[in-house]
């Protein structure tokens, strides 16, 4: 009996030791592998967002520590600033153009080139090309295209016998020109998302519809588009969040001008917050941008998932 107990004790201590090793192995793995990500993410993503909310309550030029507490004054000034209204409205226009012009264009083209043939592959690559170019480079190329003395639009006006229009310094035309460039730059990205989804639609469905006598347009509308709803929802989300962040393209094209008419939220935040070292004021704009992004993400997700269930 004593022997039995001893062996039982021995057995348990062995399993304990193994378990202990497993636990300590896990623990050391967690303690080595996880902290770098946590520290980097907290330090450079979460903390700055918290800081933005804090700074927005101060009038502060960024030197020393913020001490001049002004409450909601920065937000009041922001909401009273007509340039900020323009920036909000321009950002809204970018969202609308992305959803109503860019996405349908991308979808139409995706339907034309989604089948795997060599020519289609070539067209796909060409359409995707602008997406990989840096925004600044694209902006500079298009500033040339729209230049009133040298550009391609100038050449067209001359060919028509009209006086040249300086598109990017014209109140009426500057922002539509920017929207054109944005559609040019990003439609290929959305097209690629749709192509990936269209290739996943079972071919039997498309064939069955064709045998029933459906025309290509009807097949697209009643079979393919409903089948890729998820891709449309995802690309719509990307279009909105992307539009909220447009900055790089505007700087080389108009830098927010003429007379501050082409600002977006981010160029506004940069020009009126950072360039002039109004850190408190700029932070208020950042908080507005952040809240807008979260609100849109929340609202969008709720509505699209509800629609998906119906």
């Amino acid at each position, binding site marked *: 009996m004593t022997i039995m107990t001893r062996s039982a004790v021995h057995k348990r201590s062995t399993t304990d030791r193994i378990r202990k090793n497993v636990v300590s*192995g896990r623990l050391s*793995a967690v303690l*080595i*592998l*996880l902290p*770098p*990500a946590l520290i*980097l*993410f907290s*330090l*450079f*993503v*979460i903390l700055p*967002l918290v*800081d933005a909310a804090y*700074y927005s309550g101060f009038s502060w030029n*960024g030197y020393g520590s913020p001490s001049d507490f002004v409450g909601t004054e920065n937000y009041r000034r922001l909401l009273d600033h007509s340039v900020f209204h323009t920036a909000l409205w321009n950002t809204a226009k970018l969202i609308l153009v992305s959803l109503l012009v860019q996405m349908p264009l991308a979808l139409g*083209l995706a339907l*034309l*080139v989604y089948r795997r043939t060599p020519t289609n592959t070539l*067209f796909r*690559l*060409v*359409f*995707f*090309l*602008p997406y*990989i*170019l*840096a*925004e*600044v*480079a694209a902006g*500079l*190329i298009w500033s*040339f*295209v729209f*230049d009133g*003395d*040298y550009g*391609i639009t100038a*050449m067209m006006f001359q060919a028509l016998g009209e006086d040249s229009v300086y598109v990017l310094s014209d109140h009426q035309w500057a922002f539509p020109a920017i929207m054109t460039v944005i559609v*040019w730059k990003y439609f290929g*990205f959305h097209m*690629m*998302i749709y192509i*990936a*989804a269209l290739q996943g639609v079972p071919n039997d469905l498309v064939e069955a519809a064709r045998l029933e006598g459906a025309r*290509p347009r009807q097949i697209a509308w009643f079979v393919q588009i409903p089948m890729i709803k998820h891709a449309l929802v995802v690309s719509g989300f990307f279009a909105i969040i992307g539009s909220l*962040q447009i*900055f*790089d393209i505007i700087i*080389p094209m108009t830098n927010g001008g003429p007379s501050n008419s082409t600002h977006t*939220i*981010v160029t506004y*935040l940069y020009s009126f917050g950072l360039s002039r070292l109004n*850190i408190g004021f700029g*932070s208020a704009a*950042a908080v507005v941008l952040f809240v807008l*992004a979260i609100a849109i993400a929340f609202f969008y997700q709720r509505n699209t998932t509800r629609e998906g269930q119906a």
Partner: protein
Amino acid sequence: MNRTTRNTLRVILLILVASLVIGPLLASFFGGFKSNAELRTNPLWLPGNWDPANYAAILFDGNFWRYLGNSFFISSMTMLLTLVVGAAAAYVFAQIRFFGSKMILSYLLLGLMFPFAAAILPLFIKVRDLGLLDSYWAVVLPQTAFGLSLAILLFKAFFDQLPRELFEAAYVDGCSYLRFFWSFTLPLSTPILATVGVFVFVQSWNNFLLPLVVLNDRSLYTWPLGMMQFQGEYLTQWNMILAFVTLTIAPAVIFFLAAQKYIVAGLTGGSVKG
């Protein structure tokens, strides 16, 4: 409409769109060979005289190579760091369940919803207070931090699909978690490493806002900053500017054509799988 007519119309439409897409890029390439006077009368078509002087002037200017070198270093470091740090964290979430692991994962994925620009002002202050302004790290570390959420999401999805039996077998043979990560998980994950790596590299290569805010020293400029600097110096000498732009986008285009499979997967993969 019969099938042939429809197909012809389709191809004509596609060629039309393709020329609108390519036109500005070709005009830029051609423009770099022209004199400014020729550019004024002929902004779009082939140059009358293929004079490589503008291109040569830029290629023999040390600044151009310095900008490209800076960008290459920053993008490579960002890519390496994101892959290592992101994969390490994702490995923990895929392999080890512990109290609070789900919450920590959700925390790290918060970055998927935030617009980067919303953090740029305090990020400037933070980088300055850490004494990192005008250093490569001022760009590399925040870029890595902002890329982590997507990287962790994609890595974890991939690691979850790796066969569980493999880990159990290795574990019985005395392989530790850390060694398994290094010798099995990473080598088995090359497709997703390539996808995420390409995505991170391209994002970093094209980034403008962050370097603009944290780099003042011209010798550290990345190429988008260098290009804006160049444009500021040459103003309306469009032939020089176009040559510069063409030379900076050429590596991107060549890289794209060479590795298009990974690039397309990398740049759209996050959205399709996510």
